[in-house]
């Protein structure tokens, strides 16, 4: 039965948007925790830790997200691991976000001048103390802009999970289009919903980057 795209349709899309947001938050939390561990290991760990992490980052960054999603959804059942689309989507996005966040944050940790480590050592701080009280506060400030910028990428990237049938905003748009046959209206609405989430975050990211540039030239 063909319906018209109206209030019901918008409510249906809004429900999809909730899933998009939920998946984005889950991805950012899981990817953030793993990414932080990887970033620390990559920039401060011994060689046998740095090398595998660097390889992981390079390989994931050279693979399309869609293939990572397909691998976790269609590939893992062969190892006896049957994941529902939500779990497969979260896993794939987490693996992907981990690689990018680890790379961004490694850059931030390494952007803190080497002399800060030396000064802390001269003041008698231990390695972990230096990291906690001297390096991380500065690295976190540097990382804010790029991190918020990557959060925008995460929200947009969740759309790829529509292709394994996870009903988030884009998939909801496809389903609604199949019922209403009004693709232009449906997908413009979908696009506007993404925009409403992503644009404020992009502005915030730019602001944080600008603030950082002002700070660093003031010193």
């Amino acid at each position, binding site marked *: 039965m063909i319906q018209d795209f109206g209030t019901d349709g918008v409510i249906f899309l809004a429900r999809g948007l909730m899933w998009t947001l939920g998946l984005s938050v889950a991805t950012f939390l899981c990817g953030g925790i793993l990414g932080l561990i990887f970033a620390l290991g990559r920039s401060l760990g011994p060689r046998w830790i740095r090398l595998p992490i660097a390889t992981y980052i390079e390989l994931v960054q050279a693979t399309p997200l869609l293939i990572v999603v397909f691998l976790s959804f269609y590939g893992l059942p062969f190892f006896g691991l049957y994941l529902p689309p939500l779990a497969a989507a979260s896993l794939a996005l987490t693996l992907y976000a981990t690689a990018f966040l680890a790379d961004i944050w490694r850059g931030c940790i390494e952007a803190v001048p080497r002399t800060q480590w030396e000064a802390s050592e001269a003041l008698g701080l231990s390695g972990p103390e230096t990291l906690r009280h001297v390096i991380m506060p500065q690295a976190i400030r540097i990382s804010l802009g790029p991190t918020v910028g990557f959060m925008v990428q995460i929200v947009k990237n969740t759309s790829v999970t529509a292709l394994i049938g996870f009903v988030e905003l884009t998939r909801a748009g496809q389903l609604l289009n199949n019922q209403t046959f009004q693709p232009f209206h449906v997908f413009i609405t979908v*696009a506007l919903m993404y925009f409403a989430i992503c644009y404020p975050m992009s502005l915030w990211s730019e602001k944080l980057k600008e603030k950082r540039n002002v700070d660093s030239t003031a010193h």
Partner: protein
Amino acid sequence: MAYEMNFQPVLSRAPELIEGTIATIELSAKSIVVGLAVGLVVALGRHDGPRAVRTLATVYIEMFRNTPLLVQLFLLFFGLPFLGLRLSADEAAVIAISLNLGAYSAEIFRAGLAAISKTQVEAALALGLSKLQAMRHVVLIPALKVIYPALTGQLTLTVLGTSIASAISASELTLAGARIESSTFRSLETFLVLAAIYIAITIAFRILYALVGRLLFRRKVPPPSMRAASAFDKKEARA
């Protein structure tokens, strides 16, 4: 029970994989050429166009940077026919990916334009360089050098992003893989092979960028003001 991998059924479809790889490279190359051209025009328009042009450029950039490529593809491919413009899947893919890259590269070019300081050009002219020489050695090449890491990082994302075009059945590698997967049922092997091919394509493109970079920047050391700007941009561009 351990699963035994068998790549034979997938590898026996090598001709389709090669065809898909060529299609992906073709789609990428077309999108990069068109996308960079769009990006440059938009960046110039935003940099010193009249007010209306600047607003238009900003709206375009923000619209495309804050919505997913997949939705842009759907809008172009499924939505435009309702406005009377019917595109083939391959055309829709090139246009959507180009417009997407155009928005991102416009922002990157803008950073390059902002890095050129007027005094450098004046100094070059005072030293007796012709306008053309100053444009080339003082403006274009150093500006390009500042943005080169960010730009090539974006191009890599664009090349990998072409896989999304399989959603509208544009001919490229992921679609070829999906066809092989659905007839061999060797999902894991198929997507592992696809991942390997994409990694190889990415490496090949990176080598190409490095070679082009060498050719472009073989002589000049950028002025100090620009060197400071370039160190962090690379990391930020990926964000």
